[in-house]
């Protein structure tokens, strides 16, 4: 098991190197000349050339990339051309906000979707099932940011119950978290339902019933435990979606997280902030994906055995 974790950690290094190289390369091509962004418009050619030399922009691409990655290891990813703030510090400031939003949304999604998925599966083909599934179908068909706009329209503009912009307290978290959470809940409900339906017909469920276990024990202990693996897979696969959803909700509700940082920086053509944030997001995703894989191993002894054999 430990060897497996080490192997995965080692494998992350080339993944991060390749991803960051591609992103750095693309943004370098796309970014234009930063000197024009920093210096006033009437700067002379000599001033521009001097600044270029000073910033090391005249060096070959590979050398600049190597220097950049060297900085990354020590948490130095350059400064914003626009605000002059340190990119790494800025990202780390925004990260807790995004994690709070994404985490709340994910918990909310699980609270809604897993019971609903079990409930619809147990009442298969009844009106309860149909209602639940229609809700889920609408949920997955809706663009997340639009759901956010509509929630804002109803709860902030018309009813005036909740604030629509900013992050000055837990109250401000409700609408963005609902936006991201409801979209996820729809997806997870569908997975939970079909996973439960698979399990309900299994022989061990009949055996458990025959042995006189209570309905509750049969469903939750024998059923849900076995249905959990596809559900956890589904949740694990959603992290990219949580990130995307949070980014959109942050823009809609002016929540000061990573998504808003990236899209505001794009508007201002602030290349170092965009590049740095995206690379850090990818590293974060790799770590999350690794953690998800490890959680499986603990949930499913079969997977654990597989890892141990392969070493």
């Amino acid at each position, binding site marked *: 098991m430990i060897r497996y974790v080490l192997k995965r950690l080692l494998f992350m290094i080339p993944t991060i190197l390749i991803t960051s190289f591609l*992103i750095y390369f693309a943004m370098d091509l796309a970014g234009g000349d930063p000197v024009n962004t920093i210096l006033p418009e009437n700067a002379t050619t000599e001033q521009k050339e001097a600044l270029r030399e000073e910033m090391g922009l005249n060096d070959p691409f590979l050398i600049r990339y190597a220097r950049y990655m060297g900085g990354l290891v020590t948490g130095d990813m350059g400064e914003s051309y626009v605000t002059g703030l340190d990119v790494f510090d800025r990202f780390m400031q925004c990260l807790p906000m995004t994690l709070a939003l994404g985490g709340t949304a994910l918990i909310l999604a699980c609270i809604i979707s897993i019971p609903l998925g079990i409930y619809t599966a147990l009442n298969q083909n009844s009106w309860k099932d149909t209602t639940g599934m229609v809700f889920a179908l609408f949920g997955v068909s809706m663009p997340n940011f639009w759901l956010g*706009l509509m929630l804002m329209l109803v709860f902030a503009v018309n009813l005036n119950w909740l604030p629509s912009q900013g992050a000055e307290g837990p109250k401000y978290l409700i609408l963005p978290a609902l936006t991201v959470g409801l979209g996820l809940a729809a997806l997870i409900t569908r997975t939970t339902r079909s996973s439960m339906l698979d399990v309900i017909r299994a022989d061990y469920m009949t055996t458990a019933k025959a042995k006189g276990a209570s309905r509750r024990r049969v469903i939750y202990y024998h059923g849900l435990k076995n249905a959990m693996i596809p559900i956890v897979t589904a949740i694990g696969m959603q992290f990219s979606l949580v990130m995307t959803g949070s980014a959109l909700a942050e823009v809609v509700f002016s929540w000061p997280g990573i998504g808003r940082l990236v899209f505001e920086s794009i508007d201002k053509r602030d290349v170092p902030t965009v590049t740095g944030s995206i690379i850090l997001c990818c590293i974060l995703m790799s770590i999350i994906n690794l953690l998800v894989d490890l959680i499986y191993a603990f949930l499913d002894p079969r997977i654990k055995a597989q890892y141990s054999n392969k070493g």
Partner: protein
Amino acid sequence: MNETMKATENLQEYKGRSLAQETWHRLLKNKGAVVGMIFMVLLLLLAVSGDLIYDWDTQIDYMEMGVARQAPSMEHPFGTDQLGRDVLARVLYGSRYSLIIGVGSVVLGLIVGLITGSLAGFYGGGWDQLVMRANDILYSVPNIMLAVVIVQLLGTSILSLVIALSISSATSFAKITRASVMTIRDQEYVESAYAMGLPTWKIILRHIIPNCLSPIIVQVTLSIGSNIISASSLSFLGVGVPIPTPEWGTMLAEGRQFIRSEPWMCIFPGLAIMLTVLALNLMGDGLRDALDPKLKR
């Protein structure tokens, strides 16, 4: 007696039907899928004939400040926007952008995914490793960030949006194709095709891909829907289709600042996205049940 006769009739009916006909027949029994299909056909007709119905300069991209920001009325059923443009006309005309981007990105992703996935599944070994590692790397980049980088590189346009979205579709198609090909590769009929001396590319094209089409068809339908959502999200964030194109996400980005006073500018383009994706999801779910009756409960 009666039942036996009925069963024989049914049998007669089922005989002589090809698999595609059989699937089609089952699909028609699914109400949701039929509704979805009718909606998509109408939308397709609308998208194709958009230029015949509407004139770009006088009905889609123009300014008529006299009627700006009017609430929905008989004359403007969806109201007008901040420049006095009719929201209904723009929503209907906008269907073509969503469809072009949704279908275009899926087709492009499908071609790339089918080729790389089937080769990886068929040959295994080094090629498989390469494709799967590339997939892993793409998987570690959040889709939206990947799209942002590509759009930054290629500039904001419909084509760069199609390319950006096709990459994430390609990875899922490659995975599905690879898995299906690996299970079919060792079947007897593939071996006999080998024994008959068919070239490999023909075996892949004629015998392997047709047999793993079911999951791919379902995935195509669902991907078009999710790519339409992604495209409108990116446009909403300002990295997709630029204004004044009446793409639904772009319209939402424009209407967003007026949500307090003129909410219809935000409501209708979003409804259009939701209904389109809903129709595609209904079709996708219906196809999944129709293609694999075992799954239907």
